[in-house]
């Protein structure tokens, strides 16, 4: 079974110019555990917003690979966003769902993905590049793909272990995170 921290570390190891948006909870901590970066935008709330925020960013920055890293619970709240992404089809956008089948932040209640197939839903939504990932042998290839500004949008549903990991808490000051992110793109803070 894949470990979520190893997965995120493998995907972001050679990130280059990539921009990363995280869904609240464990995905935010997983990305923080790899190391802070001014092109990271961490959500600490706004559940269901990671994929659509990444979509707006990807359309604004077509020369930048944009990756949303989120959990199955956060993605389930925005399941229609697969359809919204499919319609716009930005080639530089990837969504990585770390699917442990649990709401890990709130007491590890089972999520719907024990029954519902997120990759199947994404595919039926009209997103062409879909993969369910269960082994580490695929991770290098996925890391290379999500670094591209062509060939997307992509959705990777990565099945990960349910074992909880220590929290790694990144920047929580939202206005600062926003200004820092924009400055990393050569934009004004405000």
């Amino acid at each position, binding site marked *: 079974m894949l470990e979520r921290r190893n997965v995120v570390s493998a995907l972001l190891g050679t990130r280059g110019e990539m*921009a990363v*948006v995280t869904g609240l909870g464990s995905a935010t901590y997983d990305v923080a555990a790899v190391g802070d970066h001014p092109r990271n*935008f961490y*959500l*600490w*709330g*706004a*559940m*269901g*917003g*990671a994929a*659509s*925020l*990444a*979509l*707006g*960013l*990807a*359309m*604004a*920055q077509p020369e*930048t690979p944009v990756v949303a890293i989120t959990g199955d619970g956060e993605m389930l709240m*925005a399941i*229609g*966003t697969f*359809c*919204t992404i499919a*319609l*716009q089809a930005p080639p530089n956008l990837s969504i990585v769902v770390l699917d442990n089948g649990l709401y890990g932040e709130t007491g590890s209640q089972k999520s719907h993905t024990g029954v519902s197939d997120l990759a199947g839903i994404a595919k039926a939504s009209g997103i062409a590049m879909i993969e369910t990932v269960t082994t580490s042998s695929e991770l290098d290839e996925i890391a290379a793909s999500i670094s591209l500004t062509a060939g997307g949008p992509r959705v990777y549903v990565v099945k990960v272990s349910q074992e909880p990991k220590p929290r790694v808490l990144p920047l929580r000051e*939202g*206005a600062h*995170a*926003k200004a820092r*992110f*924009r400055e990393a*793109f050569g*934009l004004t803070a*405000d």
Partner: protein
Amino acid sequence: MNVHPAEDAYHKWSRDIFDVLSDAKVRQVPYVPDGGHARLIELVDAHSAMRAIPLTTEEEGVALAAGAWLGGERAAVLLQSSGVGNCINMLSLIKICKFPLLMLVTMRGEWGEFNAWQVPMGSATADALGLMGVHVVRATAAEEVRQVVSNAALMAFQGGSAVSVLLSQRLIGAKAFLN
């Protein structure tokens, strides 16, 4: 083709909003459709530098507008008053990160409304936005639409504020609902 005077006015203020958005260099226009926004959506769709983005629910548009701003583009979210209710928690993102936001809200449930199901959210729209820290302005007369939207855009994109423009049902009138 003969154009009914009310339709003529509707086309005029829809064009006024479009011109304001275009002059403000708005590039992304996420929307859940509404009859009152139909003409504006057509204009946006026909414009090469602007992208009309259909949403499955309005809160997607709030997060999308934040993402656009992070990447250096401006967005305006088009929605109906009922959709404001769907945005409430996502407005936390706007408030906590101090994102600029421009929402154009066509009102239902407040003026000659034949569908009572629209009244609860229509009655609460302005208060709900206010509770989440979104500044509310309103346009009721066709002649004031350009000025109201223009000043809202200024507050959002120059001032960095979250602003919503309520387009009164009295303004939209029979055109959108009695066709």
